[in-house]
């Protein structure tokens, strides 16, 4: 059948060529990338993951150590990545090293499309792997993903505003947090544009912290299956605290959208916001509007209901995987070995990420915002390790709908959580 097809399409191509309008010859470049005779190693990382200086140095060092091997390094964008990965994995020459989001890794691992790296954990610095990411790369006792880097949320705040409002130390419990909001409001509330805490309706990463802090969870494992637990008391308490925050702050952030639309850091940069829940990497966006804001900005961990503790945080990040169809598995492992080495992990940490295969976070801690993240990421947690969780994020996320419905008053607490529970079960349950 395939040969027949080739003939037919060949005929069509000839027709086009004789009609004088075929595209300029692509036949030659077809073999140019994507593998050749194992002399090219294709690496796909996501945009914004690692600084250019790191990848350039890394590729150079790798090529120097492997004469005759060329690294074909490509940066992928998030838009459409699901389609791109799906089809790339199905091609004859898939990329050899791919960065995959930690919540997406189980989906790929469970489908048997990733190479088993269990035997290489030791040589890839396995002893120092970041716990929260490590679990996401494992499936049925085997290791498929190597932790790359992680980030977590914290409360980013304006030190100068806190000082003016008479708040001497960052809030260390939910109550203190609400008190701080009240104080800020009393001090700056005369400005109608001022918001003590910018919190959009669908920041579900923040919601996760509140749910976990209240002893709840999104779902629980029942053998190999999962059952969602959004209707549990803990989950309800977490959702309710979210609403308390929104009400206390009187934030004008959209209730029907997340922290990226519009990007919260841009609004923080406008100077009328005292706090937002985000990652350190968002600060440069704020600095685009107001370069002076970086110096005035500090951070504290998301507070807990228990005074003195901080709430667990969602550990978002990426793993590195090798497709099972890769023609260069050994080279790919060598590349991983280099990337996971202390040298490059330190560079990654210096660029503001929690390194995946190194416990040394000193480079990250030099930055005040990074220091908080380095500390809280030890208390980092992950979403249920269900192979179907990826569908929650790349499809319609019931947690976001739940937040909007409850915050806008369209549904009450019981209704919102019950509906979301059913919707989530439909995706990950069974």
């Amino acid at each position, binding site marked *: 059948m395939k040969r027949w*097809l080739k003939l*037919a*399409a060949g*005929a*069509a191509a000839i*027709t*086009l060529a004789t*009609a004088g309008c075929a595209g300029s010859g692509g036949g030659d470049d077809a073999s140019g990338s994507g593998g050749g005779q194992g002399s090219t190693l294709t690496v796909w990382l996501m945009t914004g993951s690692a600084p250019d200086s790191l990848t350039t140095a890394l590729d150079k060092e790798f090529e120097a150590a492997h004469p005759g091997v060329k690294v074909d390094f490509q940066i992928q964008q998030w838009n459409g990545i*699901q*389609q791109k990965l*799906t089809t790339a*994995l*199905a091609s004859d020459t898939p990329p050899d090293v791919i960065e995959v989001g930690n919540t997406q890794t189980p*989906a*790929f691992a469970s*489908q*048997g*499309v990733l190479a088993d790296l269990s035997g290489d954990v030791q040589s890839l610095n396995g002893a120092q792997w970041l716990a929260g990411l490590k679990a996401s790369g494992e499936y049925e006792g085997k290791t498929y993903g190597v932790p790359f880097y992680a980030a977590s949320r914290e409360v980013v705040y304006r030190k100068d505003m806190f000082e003016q409002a008479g708040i001497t130390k960052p809030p260390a419990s939910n109550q203190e947090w609400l008190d701080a909001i009240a104080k800020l409001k009393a001090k700056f509330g005369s400005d109608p544009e001022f918001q003590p805490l910018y919190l959009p309706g669908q920041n579900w990463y923040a919601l996760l912290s509140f749910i976990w802090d209240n002893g709840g969870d999104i779902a629980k494992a029942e053998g190999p299956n999962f059952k969602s637990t959004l209707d549990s008391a803990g989950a309800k308490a977490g959702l309710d605290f979210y609403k308390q925050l929104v009400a206390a702050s009187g934030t*004008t*952030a*959209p*209730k*029907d*959208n997340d922290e990226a*639309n*519009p990007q919260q850091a841009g609004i923080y940069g406008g100077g009328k916001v005292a706090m937002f829940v985000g990652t350190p990497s968002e600060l440069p966006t704020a600095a685009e509007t107001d370069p002076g804001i970086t110096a005035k900005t500090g951070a504290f961990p998301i507070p807990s209901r228990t005074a003195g503790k901080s709430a667990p945080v969602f550990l978002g990040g990426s793993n590195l995987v090798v497709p*099972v*169809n890769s023609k260069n598995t050994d080279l790919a492992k060598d590349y991983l070995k280099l990337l996971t080495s202390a040298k490059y992990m330190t560079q990654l940490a210096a660029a503001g990420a929690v390194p995946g295969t190194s416990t040394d976070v000193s480079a990250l801690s030099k930055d005040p915002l990074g220091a908080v993240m380095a500390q809280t990421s030890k208390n980092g947690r992950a979403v249920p390790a269900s192979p*179907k969780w*990826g*569908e929650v994020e*790349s*499809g*319609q996320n019931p947690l*976001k*709908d739940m937040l*909007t*419905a409850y915050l*806008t008053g*369209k549904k009450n607490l019981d209704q919102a959580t019950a*509906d979301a529970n059913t*919707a989530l079960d439909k*995706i990950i349950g069974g």
Partner: protein
Amino acid sequence: MTATKDALLPAGTTPPASARVGPAKRRWSAERITPYVLLLPAVAAVLVLLGWPTVQMLGISVRQLDLRELVTGKTVWVGLKNYTDVLTDPEFWTVAVRTVGFTALLVAATLLVALLIAVLMRHLNPVLRICVQVSLVLAWAVPVIATTTVFQWIFDQQYGILNKTLDRLGFHSFIGYSWFSTGTSTLVVIGLLVLWQAVPFVAFTLYAGLIGVPREQYEAAGIDGAGPWQTFRAVSWPAIRPILTMVTFLSVLWDFNMFGQVWAIRQGGPDGASTTLAILQYLKGIAGSHFGSAAAIATIMLVLLLAVTARYVQLLVRTKDGEIT
């Protein structure tokens, strides 16, 4: 250019009765092969590049094709399981009804607005007509991705210019009003976006049909004392009916299968209330990696679309065929 115009003018009215090769018998056989040779590239292209993937899609719809099977190339037949799974899901029927209703309303709105604009263009003075034409051409030429982004931004709850303007005009309840809180209002915004993108093409096409009608016919109607509405019914309507058939067919096709705009605005939310069949197909296929179920949904969409457009296809083929035989 006047020569071109003169030569072309009878186009709309003259049935090309003479436009035919002489009696076939007198020609030698090469003459008989010619049409097939000329059609060959088009037929080959359509069969290989559209037909074959469609057939493959039908094949995939009776297989289990997840990421695993896609990568390993393994074929797992599951018969009609994908279809029964889809058809027994109550959500599917809600979505199907919503999609059909949304398409019907959207197509009707597109045609109505475009027709009004086409008629308007015919009656405007030249300066204003060019202004309208330029604005339509601009709307048409701006790429879909760009328009979609702009619409998202215009309708933004907090920073959108729409709410700010409504507030200025005295409708203060629109401060922080969410246009995406219900499925219906989300679909309305999507509908406006699509209208804005689709109306120019349809309006231009209908306008072309309207000015194809010789002036004398309008004048004759005027002398007979017909009002504007009667003139429209008697003179314009018959002239644009075949065009309407075609643009209706195309609009149904585009609106029914539309994915990008719906997904970009709210991913089919809130609570899945603006989910259409194309979104459902995407959720199964790409987000869930169940390409078999997705192909089953796509096949059902194809069948639905065939059922809806069968009459138009028949009409279109008949008119085209009638022109020559």
